[in-house]
């Protein structure tokens, strides 16, 4: 009932205007490399303070949805992810666009975003209360085992060399270590530099490794123009056969996106990386991934939008945001003294229904805007790189500075731009690097909190059924690609 009212409310001019404005701004900021949806939300926070709580929620939720979706544009057309969550979209989106099918690449990404978002909306509406209860069961050991399941994907994600993948993953972990050691409150690996007490900003590192390094690579042949291969946008609308073929991939990727969304503090980038590597692992034709393959784009873009619905579930039911962007949405609610929790549904039903209605409506608005703007957007590809690259650098610098207002983050970004460029040259995969970077602190924090609770014993990992089953799955997932490689090698040895 309330939900119907939420949708009806969105049809009145004021809220509709906020919805369209928020979605549009989100898409634009999402598409611009460097500027993230999270930064847009943070900048809008003071404005929502003066609005009613419902209006604030409508504006911020639509920005959140638009921001996650817009990232695919630049990822597909320029191989520069507009958002960290679109990092793996570059892997298949760009080759397909370069191969002369930009319309098809964008169409796949935009449609997958809509469907992923819609599936996560269903989860948000139907599962929220149940999920809130289920999440309470999850203690430090369960959370650790759950994070471990994603962490072991480092081994499977490494295209080519497993050793290089593991090295990249370990390097990512190392980069996450400096700063305050959470479980002692003391500084570590700061080498006496006061600025290092804050550690390396994850955003600055990702901007550097993915955007700045790409700028450096492109600058090598800045004068080169892409020949116009396909001015029409054939294939932007997917046919029923496409949907039928992708159905399983979509459902699986959405489930991964929602689930990782629920995990606190993980964010959309990990969900698309996990979903992409799972799709590749389970595929009969894993070698097609990375060459402009439909399944890769669909897996990545379904998952990162599905993450939005997932991230909102613990935010409204427990007050624990599932992603960094959701934490700013939470801040907006808290400033109106709307305390999330099991009682939110009875105390502020209008806020809950506005949030849920906007989540779906913003996805529809996003789809309409991006499909309509496709023809214009696709021209981006043909702008000479020499004009684009300086703009990208400036935007990235603004993005890195805007997060915390620190010059240190800017230097971090530039340094990791050079490091990322070097890693690319040495064909060290960057996916495992991001996984290590984002997940290692979570795994460490949860494990050490668990050990503090158990007085140093690891037994709960084996005793607690949920934690134990995740542990078994993690081990299986870690062993699987190694086993497959070993079997392939043995078969190879037999035939030769």
């Amino acid at each position, binding site marked *: 009932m309330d939900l119907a009212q939420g949708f009806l409310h969105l049809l009145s001019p004021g809220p509709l205007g906020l919805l369209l404005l928020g979605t549009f701004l989100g898409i634009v900021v999402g598409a611009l490399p460097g500027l993230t949806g999270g930064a847009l939300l*943070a900048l809008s*926070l*003071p404005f929502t*303070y*003066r609005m009613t709580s419902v209006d604030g929620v409508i504006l911020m939720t639509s920005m959140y949805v638009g921001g996650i979706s817009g990232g695919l544009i630049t990822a597909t057309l320029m191989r520069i992810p507009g958002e960290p969550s679109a990092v793996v979209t570059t892997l298949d989106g760009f080759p397909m666009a370069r191969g002369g099918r930009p319309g098809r690449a964008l169409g796949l990404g935009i449609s997958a975003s809509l469907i992923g978002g819609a599936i996560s909306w269903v989860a948000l509406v139907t599962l929220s209360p149940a999920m809130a209860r289920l*999440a*309470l*069961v*999850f*203690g*430090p050991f369960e959370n650790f085992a759950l994070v471990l399941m994603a962490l072991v994907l480092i081994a499977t994600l490494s295209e080519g060399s497993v050793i290089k993948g593991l090295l990249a993953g370990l390097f990512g972990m190392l980069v996450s270590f400096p*700063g*305050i050691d*959470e*479980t*002692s*409150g*003391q*500084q570590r690996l700061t080498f006496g530099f*006061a*600025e290092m*007490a*804050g*550690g390396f*900003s994850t955003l600055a590192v990702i901007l550097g490794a993915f955007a700045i390094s790409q700028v450096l690579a492109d600058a090598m042949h800045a004068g080169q123009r892409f020949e116009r291969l396909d001015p029409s946008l054939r294939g932007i609308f997917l046919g029923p056969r496409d949907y039928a073929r992708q159905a399983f991939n979509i459902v699986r990727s959405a489930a991964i996106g929602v689930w990782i969304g629920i995990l*606190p503090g993980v964010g959309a980038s990990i969900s698309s990386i996990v979903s992409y590597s799972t799709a590749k692992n389970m595929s009969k034709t894993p070698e097609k991934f990375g060459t402009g393959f439909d399944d890769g784009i669909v897996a990545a873009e379904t998952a990162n939008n599905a993450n939005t619905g997932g991230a909102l579930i613990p935010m409204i039911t*427990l*007050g*624990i945001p599932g992603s960094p962007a959701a*934490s*700013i949405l*939470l*801040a907006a609610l*808290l*400033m109106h*003294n709307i*305390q*999330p*929790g*099991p*009682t*939110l549904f009875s*105390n502020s039903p209008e806020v809950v229904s506005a949030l849920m209605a906007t989540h779906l409506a913003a996805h529809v608005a996003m789809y309409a805007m991006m499909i309509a703007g496709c023809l214009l957007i696709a021209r981006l590809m043909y702008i000479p790189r020499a004009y684009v690259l300086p703009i990208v650098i400036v935007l990235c610098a603004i993005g890195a500075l805007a997060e*915390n*207002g*620190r010059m240190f983050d800017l230097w971090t970004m530039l340094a990791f731009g050079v490091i990322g460029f070097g890693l690319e040259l040495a064909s060290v995969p960057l996916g495992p690097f991001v996984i290590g970077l984002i997940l290692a602190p979570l795994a460490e*924090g949860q494990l*050490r*909190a668990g050990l*503090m*609770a158990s*007085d140093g014993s690891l037994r709960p990992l084996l005793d607690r059924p949920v934690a134990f089953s995740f542990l078994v799955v993690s081990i299986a997932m870690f062993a699987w690609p190694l086993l497959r490689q070993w079997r392939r090698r043995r078969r190879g040895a037999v035939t030769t």
Partner: protein
Amino acid sequence: MNRRQVIAASLAATTLATAARAQAYPDKPIRIVVPNPPGGSADYVARFFQVPLQRLLGQGVAIANVVGGGTSIGNRQVRDAAPDGHTVLAVHQALLTAATLKVMDFGPEAFAQVAQVATEYVAVVVNRKAPYQTLPSFLDAARSGELKAGVQIGAINHFLFLSLGDKTGVKFRFVNTGGGGPTRTALAGGHVDCAFLTVNEAKPLVDSGDLTILALFAPQRLASWPNLATAREQGTDLLLNLNYWWWMPRATPRDRVDRFAEALRAGMDDAEVKNKLAEFNIVPAFLKGAELEAEISRQYEAMKQLAQRNNVTAG
């Protein structure tokens, strides 16, 4: 006019201009650094004052969340800022805990202490299913030393437990669950046994029947929640609270510090600020000047001794 006269005249002119500028404070937008992420109480208390300060000072007021290093990054940024009154820090006892743990190589003495605007009393909260549902029975159970307290090691919620332990002789086993939100969830899920939360943080899960507030460490009961017992009534005479403090770089001219403090005090009369504080169960409590400095240094000394007795300082 000879050369000496010219110099004298221009010197006089400069002095006058400086004086005029001093009077004109603030002559550009003011940046308020909050060293905590958006959404925490330290953040929203600063934001309550944003609009009234703009009106009272006649300049734009921007809030920047400079997060990291247990608030040390933001604190340091303000300490090193130009001491012209246009950079202000809004942070509670987190500044003292960071200094006590030697995460920063400076403490409250490195700042001009502007004002305190409010104080927020905290409460000990347990799971509704726990066998102890009053403060005395909880403390009895805690004497075993086996009760798990959800805290963020080195942060204020850790020190609150150390204070309680110091007062009652009880030791807790600390589990690093983090800030208010995640700690509240760990408590509701039974992964820890007790936590210090603000009334506002605890309320939704108290209403839902998951948690019980055992005692509020305030001098008297809250008007907004009259059946919430204080610790004092239950035999533990201890007051524990967060103090919302404002700071400027050490060398900021006294008249500018006073001008800003006065704006904060006037801002407390703003109807919206009053409403917000009441709605959040935060008590207005204005302090400045010598009184404020005495209070901060008293708390800082007490905290350092507490850390030493409990062996939480590594440095």
